[in-house]
């Protein structure tokens, strides 16, 4: 057993009661040493529950999990020592200053005052908060608070870092800052990182391996490139004026491609040589008196992977915004 691995076997978490809820339903995965593992899923899919079990805040109903070689149930104290945690809700006393919080955290982990202070300085530099050292955490921006929380998670020099939705609620610029930080921690310090996210581009950007979780079950797992390649097809996306028209359009085009998908007013036609098929698509639609508002051609994205395996689109309003930002950036690059 390597000391930077995470191994999860048949993990189940159900909450008893009238409407028995199974938040995590037989999850298996392994995170290799020094890798970034992205746990992707919509709200309520079981991401936070999994992270709470792995960080010893909750007990599994059944199954087993080893973090850095320690069992999360029977060796909770050891797990806490080797794993740093930044939960989705940032746990910071807004009345305290960043330096005070970091020194206290260090001392609770057993460091002397001098060592804890030196470590705090180091970490504030690492997350670039040295300017704000004498300000109360309550005055920080969302991005700064995330970075302070990240620093707090690193106080005991963890081998493994758990980040629960590290960029939820952040503006695109702060999000990029956090991404850069996460990558740096991983590359420079070799810390294994387990992160949950509901943003596809976050998983795509950061993770070596992505597991998609829907309703407590992992429905797909692999590197982003592998997952996308497995789709093996391009798609022609047609937007119609109404969902009814889109449904008609789909019926018309269904025989052409490998398969079609209808998402409200949008029809996706999946086929291997999409560009060459565009004239035929337009012809067929015209014969039926249908005219799409727009037609686009796409390579498979993680979004498609998600739609494919989960049967639904991953909707996160902020993700939509930053996706726009990203496509804009791409254009600028061109």
């Amino acid at each position: 057993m390597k000391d930077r691995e995470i191994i999860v076997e048949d993990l189940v978490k159900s909450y008893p009661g009238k409407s028995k809820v199974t938040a995590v339903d037989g999850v298996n995965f392994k995170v290799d040493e020094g890798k970034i593992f992205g746990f992707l899923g919509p709200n309520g899919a079981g991401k936070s529950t999994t992270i709470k079990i792995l960080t010893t805040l909750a007990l599994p109903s059944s199954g087993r999990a080893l973090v850095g070689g320690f069992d999360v149930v029977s060796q909770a104290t050891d797990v806490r020592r080797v794993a740093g945690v930044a939960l989705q809700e940032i746990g910071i006393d807004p009345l305290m200053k960043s330096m005070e919080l970091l020194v206290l955290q260090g001392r609770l982990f057993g460091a002397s005052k001098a060592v804890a202070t030196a470590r705090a300085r180091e970490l504030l530099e690492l997350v670039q908060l040295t300017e704000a050292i004498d300000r109360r955490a309550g005055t920080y921006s969302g991005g700064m608070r995330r970075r302070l929380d990240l620093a707090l998670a690193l106080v005991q020099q963890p081998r493994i870092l758990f980040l629960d939705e590290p960029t939820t609620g952040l503006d695109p610029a702060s999000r990029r800052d956090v991404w850069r930080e996460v990558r740096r921690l991983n590359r420079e310090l070799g810390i294994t990182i387990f992160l949950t996210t509901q943003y596809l581009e976050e998983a795509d950007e950061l993770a070596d391996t992505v597991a998609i979780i829907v309703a407590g079950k992992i429905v797909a797992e692999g590197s982003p490139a592998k997952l996308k390649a497995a789709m093996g097809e391009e798609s022609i996306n047609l937007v119609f004026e109404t969902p009814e028209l889109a449904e008609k359009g789909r019926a018309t085009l269904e025989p052409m491609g490998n398969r079609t998908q209808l998402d409200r007013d949008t029809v996706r036609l999946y086929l291997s040589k999409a560009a060459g098929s565009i004239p035929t698509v337009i012809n067929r639609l015209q014969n039926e008196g249908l005219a799409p508002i727009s037609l686009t051609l796409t390579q498979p994205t993680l979004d498609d992977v998600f739609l494919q395996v989960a049967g639904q689109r991953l909707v996160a309003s902020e993700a939509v915004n930053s996706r726009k930002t990203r496509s804009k950036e791409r254009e600028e690059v061109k």
Partner: protein
Amino acid sequence: MDTNMYVLPIEKPAVKKPLSLPVHVFLLTMRSLTSLLRTPEALLPPIAISIFFLVIYQSTLGKAAGSIPGIGGSYLGFILPLSIVSGSLSGSGIAAQNLVRDIERGYFDKLLLTPVRRAALLLAPIMAGAVILGIQAAIVVAVGLIMGLKPATGFLGMLAVIGLGVLLGIGFAGFTVSAALGSGSAAATQGASFLFFPLTFLAPTFVPLSLLSGWLEVAAKLNPITYVLEAMRALLNTGWDGNAIGTSILACLGLAVAMYALAVFALSVRTRRT
């Protein structure tokens, strides 16, 4: 990807001796105090109310007190302990409010993820509250001196009065801290600190114990506040009374131990992993 360029210097876990409980309590108490002193708006009302009642009681009843037997000195010396006791009550909520804020903000969870001694999580807010109560009681005594209080036991007696106020407050704080841990809600914690309020009046609040009768006398004899009031009054008005002081300390300790047990239970429920 070459991820393992540098290897972290990591000590073998669980080998290092964890810090002792007093160190953890001290660190967390200082943290609570820092945080509390940065919200003076939460600290001032209990002091203001204590002083307000002291002035009101003295002005309303001060003159009539000549006709009440058993005061044994000045009415100010008789009524000032009430002001300190009600300050202990309202002030005991401060510790719990600080704790409940930690719970709501998620900082409590952050602390739980460290190897902190669990008992320190309870004792620290109680200790921080005790420090605040001590300052508060000292201010009330100072105001009493300005109003013309001449304590029968001098400076040491005044310290003893403050000490008893703090000791009583520690017991109440155990209760409000339990409420904070049990409910995790600021409103419920606020409510809990009012629960003790009637206790102030099931006691020889305005007249000596010898003038109470019937059910109120029985209730007063069961109420730890009674013994604290008696001891404080003796200190301020008549002189050192070892018996009264001993009884009041026992009453406070009894209350504190019972409430601490309750708090330990509430903590174990809150931190039980489910």
